[in-house]
C-alpha cells in the first residue's frame, strides 16, 4: 500500500511537472504572478525583512522580470529554496525561474537540463574565519574543520582545493545556511566557506562582523545567475533580456529617477539614442518579438532602477555588505558586465 501511495505522489508530481514544462511565459501571464525561486535568507541577495517583504539583489531581478511579464513588480511569489532543494524546485515546475546565487556549471547546464541565461554576479569561493584563529591564508587551514552548505559547487571546490594543496580538513556538511552559520559562530567549525559574496552577506548579518575576516584566497570561479528549465527558449530569452535591459539602462545612464524624463526627452527628440528608444518601447515594437508588450523593459527598469542601482542599493559599498563592483562593473569601466546590443 505504502508503495502505491509513493508512486501516486510521484506520478502526480511528474504529471504536474510535465504540464508546466514548456510555455512558462504563457503560464506566468495567465497566472498574473511570477514564482521566483529565492534564497532562504541571504541578506542583500534574497531575504524577507521584518515586515515580510522580500529584498535583495537577486530579488530585484525577480521583480524586474515580473514587471516585464505581468506588468507589476510586486506580483512575485518568492519560494525560499536551500542549496539542496533549489534545482528540484525548478525542475519540477514549482518555480518559474531560479534567481538564487546559483553557479553556472557544465553539468548543471547539460546533466541537470537547465539553462543559465545570464550572469548577474561574477563571484568566486572564499573562506571566512574568526580573527582570533590567527590564520591569514586559506593554505594555513591544514587540519581545520570547515562548514559547508550541501548541494553546492562550493562543496566540490573545497575538496579540490585541499587536495591540490596537500592539506587535510574535516568537512561539516550542513543542509541549510542558517545552521552552517550557527555552527560556525558557536565554534563547531574553524572556517566557513561559500561564494565570497555570500560570505560578505553572512558576515554583515552577524552580531560582531568586525571579529571575522574573509581570507584573501579565491579558490574558484562562481558565475552566478538566473536559471530556467532547458528547452523553454522563449522564457529563457525573456529573463535574459530583462537582465540585459537593466545593464543597458546603466550603460545609457537611465535610472529609476530619470526614467520618465528620458522617455519624455526621447519621445520629443527624433535624434535621441535609437537603442534607448527601442529599449523603452518608444520606437518599434521590440517587446513583441519575445512575446511581451512594448513597454515591458521600461517597466522592468522602473521597479528598482538599472543594474548599478540595484547593486548599490542591496550589496554596494554603502550597505553593510559593502561589496565593490570589481568584476561586476560594466565593461566600459573595466568589469565583465556586457549586454548584447538591443536591436
Amino acid at each position, binding site marked *: 500500500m505504502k508503495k*502505491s501511495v*509513493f*508512486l*501516486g505522489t*510521484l*506520478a502526480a508530481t*511528474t*504529471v504536474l*511537472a*510535465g504540464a508546466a*514544462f514548456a510555455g512558462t511565459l504563457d503560464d506566468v501571464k495567465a497566472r498574473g504572478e511570477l514564482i521566483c525561486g529565492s534564497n532562504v535568507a541571504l541578506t542583500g541577495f534574497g531575504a524577507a525583512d521584518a515586515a515580510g517583504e522580500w529584498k535583495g539583489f537577486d530579488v530585484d531581478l525577480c521583480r524586474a522580470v515580473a514587471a516585464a511579464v505581468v506588468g507589476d513588480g510586486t506580483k512575485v511569489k518568492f519560494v525560499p529554496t536551500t*542549496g*539542496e532543494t533549489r*534545482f*528540484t524546485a525548478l*525542475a519540477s515546475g514549482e518555480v518559474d525561474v531560479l534567481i538564487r546565487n546559483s553557479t553556472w556549471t557544465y*553539468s*548543471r547546464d547539460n*546533466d*541537470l*537540463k537547465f539553462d543559465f541565461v545570464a550572469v548577474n554576479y561574477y563571484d568566486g569561493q572564499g573562506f571566512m574565519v574568526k580573527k582570533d*584563529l590567527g590564520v591569514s591564508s586559506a593554505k594555513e*587551514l*591544514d*587540519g*581545520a*574543520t570547515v562548514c559547508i552548505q*550541501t*548541494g553546492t559547487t562550493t*562543496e*566540490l571546490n*573545497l*575538496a*579540490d582545493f585541499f*587536495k591540490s594543496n596537500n592539506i587535510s*580538513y*574535516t*568537512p*561539516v*556538511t*550542513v*543542509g541549510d545556511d542558517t*545552521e552552517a552559520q550557527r*555552527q560556525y559562530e*558557536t*565554534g*563547531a*567549525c*574553524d572556517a566557513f566557506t561559500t561564494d565570497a559574496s555570500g560570505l560578505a552577506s553572512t558576515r554583515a548579518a552577524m552580531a560582531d562582523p568586525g571579529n571575522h575576516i574573509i581570507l584573501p584566497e579565491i579558490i574558484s570561479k562562481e558565475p552566478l545567475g538566473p536559471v530556467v528549465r*532547458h*528547452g523553454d527558449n522563449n522564457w529563457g530569452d525573456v529573463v535574459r533580456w530583462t537582465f540585459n535591459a537593466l545593464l543597458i539602462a546603466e550603460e545609457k545612464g537611465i535610472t529609476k529617477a530619470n526614467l520618465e524624463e528620458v522617455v519624455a526627452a526621447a519621445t520629443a527628440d527624433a535624434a535621441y539614442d535609437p537603442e534607448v528608444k527601442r529599449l523603452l518601447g518608444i520606437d518599434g515594437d521590440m517587446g513583441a518579438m519575445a512575446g511581451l508588450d512594448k513597454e515591458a523593459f521600461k517597466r522592468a527598469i522602473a521597479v528598482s532602477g538599472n543594474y548599478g542601482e540595484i547593486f548599490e542599493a542591496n550589496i554596494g559599498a554603502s550597505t553593510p555588505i559593502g561589496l565593490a563592483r570589481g568584476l561586476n562593473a560594466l565593461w566600459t569601466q573595466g568589469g565583465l558586465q556586457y549586454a548584447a546590443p538591443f536591436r
Partner: protein
Amino acid sequence: MTIAVEPPKAAFRLSMLIYDTRYRAMTIQVIVLALVLLFVGWLTDNTIQNLAAKDKDINFGFLWARAGYDIDQQLIPYTNDSTHGRALFVGLANTLVVAFFACIFATIIGVIAGVLRLSKNWLVARLMTVYVEVFRNIPLLLWIILSFVVLGETRPAPKDFRVTDEMIAAGESPAATMSFFDSVAITNRGSNIPAPKLTTDLGGFELLGVPFSFAVLGTLALIIGSVLVNNRVLAQAKAVQEATGDRPTTWWKSLLILFAPTLLFLWVLGFHLEYPVLKGFNFQGGISVAHSFTALVIALSIYSATYIAESVRAGILAINRGQTEAAYALGIRPGRTMKLIVLPQALRVIIPPLISQYLNITKNTTLGMAISYLDLKGTLGGITLNQTGRELECMLLMMMIYLTLSLLISSLMNIYNNAVKLKER
C-alpha cells in the same frame, strides 16, 4: 447427528461469479488485483513518459562516476576520488552503525525502565513513568536537535584545551581539560577517544574494497572460540549438576577460557592505546566521534527506549501473578523469580513489538539529516542526489535499501522469536 445432503450439482454460469458467495470473494480479488496492476502500469508509463519529456532517462551510471565530495565519518575507506557508489556504502555503513548502537542502548535502557516502572518503590516507579511519558510524547526530531545543540554549545572549543609555554611559566591551567585520566577529549565538535593499536602489523586483505586486518579477524575468531569452549564447560557443569545435584565451580575456568587467549594474543601483538592530542585546530590521533553521531545515538536510544519500556512492562504484566506466587512459595528470591520465571515467558510478548522498534530506529536514523549526519540519506539521498540531479534513481535505490534492511532485521528477529516462543509439543 446431521446428515450431509449433497446439493444438486448446478452447471457453472457466469452470473455465479457475482451472485454465488463461493465465487464472489475470488471475483472481487481478481478485479482489485487487475485494477492495481493497471494503476501501477499507468504510473510507471506516465513517469517514464514525463521523464522522456524532460529529456531525462532512468540511468544508474552515475554510481560509477567520481563523487568529488568529502565525507567526515567513514567506516570504509573513501576519498573524494571514490565513486558515488562507494559514497553510498559509506553512508549505508554510517546508517548501520547508528542503528546498531541505538538498538543496543535503547534495549538496555528500555528493559531497565520497563522493569523499574513496576517497582514497588513508589519514587522509582513514578520517576520511570515521568521519563517514559516525557520522552515518548515529544517528537524525536526535537530530541535529536536538542542533544546536538547541547553537546555543541556547552562543550569547550579545542583551542581551550591548549597549554602554552607561557601558561606553564605563569602556572595557569587551560580553560578545559581532558576527561578520564586525560584520555578522552570532548570538544564542541566531537569526542576524541583513545584508539586501540597494535605494534606488530599482521597485514590483511581487501574484499570488495573493504579492508580486513588479520589481527582483527584473529581476535574475533579467538573470542568466538573462547565463548564456544566456555559453553561446553558450562554444559558439562550443568550435566554434573543434574546428575549429582552439585554444581562444580566454573567461574575461574570461565574467566580463564574467556579472556586468557585473547589477551595473550593482543599482548604478543603489542596492544596499546593511542591517545588523542591537540594538534593545530583539532585533536588528532585516537578515534574522533562527531557530535552528530553521538547526538543521534543518544536521542534515538532514549526516545525508542520509552516504547521498549512499555512493551517490557506489558510483557511482564501479561504473566499471571500466580507464576510469581508459585515461585515465591518455592522459596525463590524475587530477583531470580524475575530472571528465571517471569522474563523468559514475558519475552514472548515483548519480542514482536521489539522488532518493530528496531525497524523504527533503523528508519529514524534518516532524521540525522537535521544535524548534518551523513548517513545513507545524507550521501546517496543528499549530496549525490543533488550533485547528479538523479532524484528518481536515488530515491528508488534508497527505498530499496531501507526495505531490504527492514526485511533483514525483521527476519533475524523472527528467527530469535521462534527460538524463544512457547514450544508446543
